C-alpha cells in the first residue's frame, strides 16, 4: 500500500508557498544577484572585467590556491589522524559512549579560532609549552603560515572525522572480530571491510572539514594569514563596499569549490548511509578486561590532548600576569566577572540572533521535512540531497550576497536601512542551519506516525487538543534537538557575523570573543568569555545526552540527524 495521504491540502500549499518565498528572498535571489554581479558589468551585460582582474592579480590566484590547499590539507591531516584511532576502536570493538559520540560533533558548535588563540597562548614564545620547546624551534602556529592553519583546523575537526568514521564502521565490528577468529587476518579485514565501510563516513567528515576551513574567516585572521579567499573577500567588502564585483567573484568561486567538494563527497556518501542507521548506540556492549583498558586509554588520551590544547585559553582566562613563565604568576577571576558584567549584551545578542534563527529553522525545517515526506517517491531522494547541499554554502559568500542584495532596502515600520540592522544576521544563520533543521524535523515527524494522529481524530478530540496533547509532546524531542542544533551552529557562525554585524554593540558572543582576543589587554576577558561559551555548549550537550536517554525512542538520535542521507526512520 502506498504511504498515507500523499498530496497537499490547501493549508499545506500555503505553507509551501511561504517556504518558497523564504528560500527565494533569503537564498536564491541574493546568491543569484551576487553571481550575476560577478560576471556582468554595470550595464548588466556579460563582462569578464572582474574575472580578468582576478586572474591578473597574483595575490588572488595565490589566495584561491591557498584556500583549496589549506582546506584539503586540514581535511587530509584530520583523516590521517582519525584513521589509526578509528581502526583501533574497530579492532577492539570499542563503541563510544553516547556522551563521547555527542562530543564528537562539538567542532560544529565551537569556532576553531578559539583553538588557534589557545595554541598561540600555549605554544607562543611567552607561553608555557613554548618556553620549554623553544630550544627545538618555534611551535607557535601563527609562525608557521598556512601549515599552522592546516594543523589548527585538523586538530579542531579531528573529533568530527573520527566520529563519522566510527559511526560508519562500528555496526560491523563484532562480525569482523568473529571473522578474525575464524582465520581472517586483521590487515585483510581492515583493507577489505573497514576501509570500504568507513569511506562514506570519512568522506562526510573530510567534506565538512574542507567546507568549514574554506569558509573560516576568524582563524586565518587570528593567525595573521590573509592570502586566502575568505579574508580577501572580507577585505574587499570592507574597503570597496558590498557592490564590489571582485568580492562577488571570490564568493562565487568559494561556492563553486564548495559545491564541487560536496558533490564529490555525496557520491561516496550515498553508498554507505545505511550503515549509520544500523550502528548501535554504544551502550549494549559492556567493555571488560583489556578492551576496557584500551578504550579508556583511547578516549582519555584524546580528552587529555584537547584539554592540553585548550589549556592555553583556560590559563589565560584565570591569569593576571603570564609571560615567559610555565604557569601564570598570579591568578584572578576578574576576567570572568568582567566577561559576565560587560558582555551581557553580547550574550543577549546571541540569544536573540541564534534563538530567532533556530525558531525560523524549526518552522521552515518542519515544512520542508513535511514536503519531502509527502512528495512522490521519485522526488524524495533529490529533495533530501538538495536540502543537504545547503551545507556547501559558505557563510562569507552568503553574507556578501546579503549585503549586495539588501543594500538600500528599508526595513518597514522602523524606516532604517536593512543592512544597518541585525535582522540579516539571523536570516543568514537560518539558511546555514537549515540542512540540520530539516534532518531533525524529519526525525520529529517520524516520531509521530500518521496512525497516532488518526487514532486521536477518531476519538472525537478537538484539533487543539490533538495538537497540544498528542502532536507536540510526541514531536517535542525532535523539535528541541532541531532548535538546539541550529542554535549551536548559528552561535559559532563567525564568518557571516563578521560581515553582517552592523556595530560592535550588536555583536554576538563569538564575535565579541574574537574582538577581545585581537587586543593585548582583552585576551583575559576574551578567554574567559570563550571558556564560558564552551562550558555552556558542554552543558547543553550533557543535557542533550540526558534527554536522549530519557526519551522513549533513544536510538542514536543525534547521528540520524547530523549525518546526511541517513534514513531517520
Amino acid at each position, binding site marked *: *500500500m502506498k504511504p498515507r495521504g500523499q498530496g497537499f491540502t490547501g493549508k499545506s500549499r500555503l505553507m509551501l508557498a511561504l517556504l518558497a518565498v523564504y528560500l527565494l528572498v533569503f537564498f536564491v535571489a541574493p546568491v543569484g544577484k551576487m553571481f550575476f554581479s560577478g560576471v556582468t558589468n554595470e550595464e548588466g551585460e556579460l563582462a569578464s572585467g572582474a574575472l580578468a582582474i582576478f586572474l591578473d592579480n597574483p595575490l588572488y590566484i595565490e589566495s584561491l590556491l591557498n584556500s583549496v590547499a589549506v582546506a584539503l590539507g586540514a581535511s587530509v591531516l584530520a583523516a590521517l589522524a582519525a584513521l589509526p584511532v578509528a581502526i583501533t576502536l574497530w579492532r577492539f570493538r570499542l563503541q563510544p559512549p553516547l556522551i563521547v559520540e555527542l562530543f564528537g560533533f562539538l567542532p560544529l558548535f565551537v569556532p576553531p579560532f578559539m583553538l588557534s588563540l589557545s595554541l598561540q597562548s600555549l605554544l607562543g614564545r611567552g607561553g608555557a609549552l613554548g618556553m620549554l620547546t623553544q630550544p627545538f624551534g618555534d611551535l607557535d602556529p601563527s609562525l608557521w603560515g598556512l601549515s599552522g592553519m592546516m594543523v589548527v583546523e585538523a586538530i579542531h575537526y579531528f573529533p568530527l572525522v573520527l566520529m563519522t568514521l566510527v559511526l560508519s564502521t562500528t555496526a560491523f565490528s563484532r562480525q569482523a572480530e568473529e571473522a578474525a577468529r575464524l582465520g581472517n587476518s586483521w590487515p585483510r579485514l581492515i583493507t577489505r571491510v573497514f576501509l570500504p565501510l568507513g569511506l562514506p563516513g570519512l568522506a562526510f567528515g573530510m567534506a565538512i572539514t574542507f567546507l568549514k576551513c574554506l569558509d573560516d574567516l576568524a582563524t586565518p585572521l587570528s593567525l595573521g594569514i590573509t592570502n586566502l579567499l575568505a579574508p580577501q573577500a572580507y577585505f574587499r567588502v570592507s574597503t570597496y563596499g558590498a557592490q564590489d564585483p571582485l568580492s562577488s567573484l571570490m564568493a562565487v568561486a568559494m561556492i563553486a569549490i564548495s559545491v564541487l567538494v560536496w558533490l564529490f563527497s555525496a557520491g561516496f556518501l550515498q553508498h554507505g548511509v545505511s550503515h549509520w542507521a544500523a550502528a548501535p548506540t554504544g551502550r549494549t556492549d559492556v567493555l571488560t578486561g583489556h578492551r576496557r583498558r584500551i578504550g579508556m586509554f583511547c578516549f582519555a588520551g584524546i580528552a587529555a590532548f584537547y584539554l592540553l590544547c585548550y589549556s592555553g585559553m583556560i590559563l589565560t582566562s584565570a591569569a593576571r600576569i603570564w609571560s615567559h613563565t610555565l604557569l601564570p604568576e598570579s591568578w584572578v577571576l576578574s576576567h570572568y566577572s568582567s566577561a559576565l558584567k560587560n558582555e551581557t549584551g553580547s550574550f543577549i545578542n546571541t540569544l536573540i540572533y541564534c534563538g530567532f534563527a533556530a525558531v525560523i529553522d524549526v518552522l521552515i525545517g518542519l515544512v520542508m521535512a513535511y514536503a519531502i515526506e509527502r512528495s512522490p517517491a521519485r522526488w524524495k531522494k533529490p529533495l533530501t540531497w538538495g536540502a543537504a547541499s545547503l551545507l556547501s554554502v559558505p557563510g562569507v559568500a552568503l553574507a556578501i550576497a546579503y549585503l549586495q542584495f539588501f543594500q538600500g532596502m528599508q526595513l518597514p515600520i522602523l524606516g532604517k536601512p536593512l543592512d544597518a540592522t541585525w535582522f540579516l544576521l539571523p536570516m543568514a544563520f537560518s539558511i546555514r542551519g537549515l540542512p540540520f533543521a530539516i534532518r531533525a524535523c524529519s526525525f520529529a515527524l517520524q516520531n509521530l506516525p500518521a*496512525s497516532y494522529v488518526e487514532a486521536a*481524530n*477518531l476519538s*472525537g478530540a478537538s484539533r487543539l487538543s490533538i495538537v497540544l496533547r498528542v502532536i507536540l509532546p510526541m514531536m517535542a524531542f525532535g523539535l528541541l534537538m532541531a532548535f538546539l542544533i541550529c542554535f549551536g551552529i548559528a552561535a559559532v557562525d563567525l564568518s557571516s557575523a563578521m560581515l553582517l554585524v552592523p556595530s560592535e554593540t550588536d555583536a554576538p558572543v563569538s564575535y565579541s570573543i574574537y574582538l577581545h582576543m585581537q587586543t593585548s589587554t582583552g585576551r583575559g576577558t576574551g578567554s574567559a568569555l570563550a571558556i564560558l561559551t564552551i562550558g555552556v555548549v558542554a552543558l547543553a550537550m550533557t543535557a542533550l545526552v540526558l534527554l536522549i536517554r530519557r526519551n*522513549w525512542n533513544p536510538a542514536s538520535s543525534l547521528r540520524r540527524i547530523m549525518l546526511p542521507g541517513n534514513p531517520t526512520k
Partner: protein
Amino acid sequence: MNNVRIEADNIAFSYGEPRVLRNISLSIEAGELFAVVGPSGSGKTTLLRVIAGLEQPSTGTIRINGTNVNDIPLTQRNIGMVFQNFSLWPHMTVFENVAFGVSEHDLHGETVKARVDRILDILDIDETRDARPAHLSAGQQQRVALARALVTEPRLLLLDDPFSNLEYELRVQMRHDLRLLQRKLGITTILVTHDLEDALCIADRLAVVVHGTIRQIGNPTALYDFPNSIEVARFVGVENFIPGTLRHIESQLIEFFSPDIGMLRWPMRDRPPEGPAMLSIRPHALHICPIDSFRDGRYSWIEGSIVTSEFLGEVVRYQVAIGNTCLSVKQPHFLGSAATPTGTPVLLGFDPSRARIFPALQESGASASYD
C-alpha cells in the same frame, strides 16, 4: 446489540493509478462481526480506512443505518478503531490513553474515571493503568488499544489486523476474548486481517478482497468449502490445481481428462462449461494408500510416487509426483507410524465431492466453481 448497520455502495478509491479499490459493495448487519481478508496489498486496509473516514472514496457512498456519512467529519462519526501497530501514545499512561477520547466529551471527571475504570476492568488491564505503553506486553498493548477504541461507546468498531503483532498462543487467546467481548457488547465490528485462520475462527461472515475487489462474501464454512474462483481457492488454502479438459458425458456425469492423471469421471449436478478446466483439491482431502490397495468405488484414484515428506507434528506433508504434476498431500500422523519413504509408488484417493472445478482461463473477477 447496538443496531448499527453498515452499507458500502460502489466504493472506489485510488492514490493515482492503479485503483486500490474498485466497485466495492457490501452490507454488514447490526451486531455482526464481519471480516475482510485478502493477501497483502489487496486493498483491505484501505477499505477499512474508507469506512472509518480516514480516506475519502473517489466514488460511492458509505451509509450507517441508511445515512450517508461520506461528508460527516471523522471526529463526529463515533467510530472506534484499533490500529495494526496499536498506535498508543507513548507519553501517556494507560489511563490517559484510554481517557483521551472521553475527556473530550464534556463529561464530569468522575464520570470519565468511572467509564475508563469500567472498560479497563472488562478488558482485565486495570492493574496497568499507571504504566506507559513501552512497559506493556504486546497483548496488554492490544487490550489498551481496544479499551481506547471502546471507551467512547462507538457505533462501529474497526480492527485493522490487530493480531498480527502477537505470538500464536496469545493470538488464539486474544481472538477468543475479542469474540466474547464483541458478543457481549453487541457492537457491529469489521475485522481486517491477512490471516485466514483469524477470520474463520471469529467472524460471522467474511469477504475475500483481491486486487481491490470483493471476490466472495459468505460465512466461514461456505467460503472455505466452496470458493468461487481460483484466487479465492488459493487464498483459502487450496494448493493442488491440475489443468485438464472437461467434457459432459451424460446429463449429470462429467469427465475430466488430464495427461498427468488420466481420465476421471464423476457425477456433478451443476453443469460446468466444457473445455479447458482446472481441478482443485485440498491437501487433506487426498489420502495415500499402498499402490496395490483395494480401490474403493466411492473415490477417484490416481497413481503416483512419493517425492518428499515433511513431518509437521499433527500431520505429515507429502509431495506426490503424478506425471509432470506434483500434488501436496497431508496425512494425519499416528503414534509410532513412520512416514512413507521417498520413491514409494502410492495410490492417491479422493472423494469427488471434495474436488472443485474452475474454468481454466478464469480471469480476475470471474467467479464460478463447480462441485
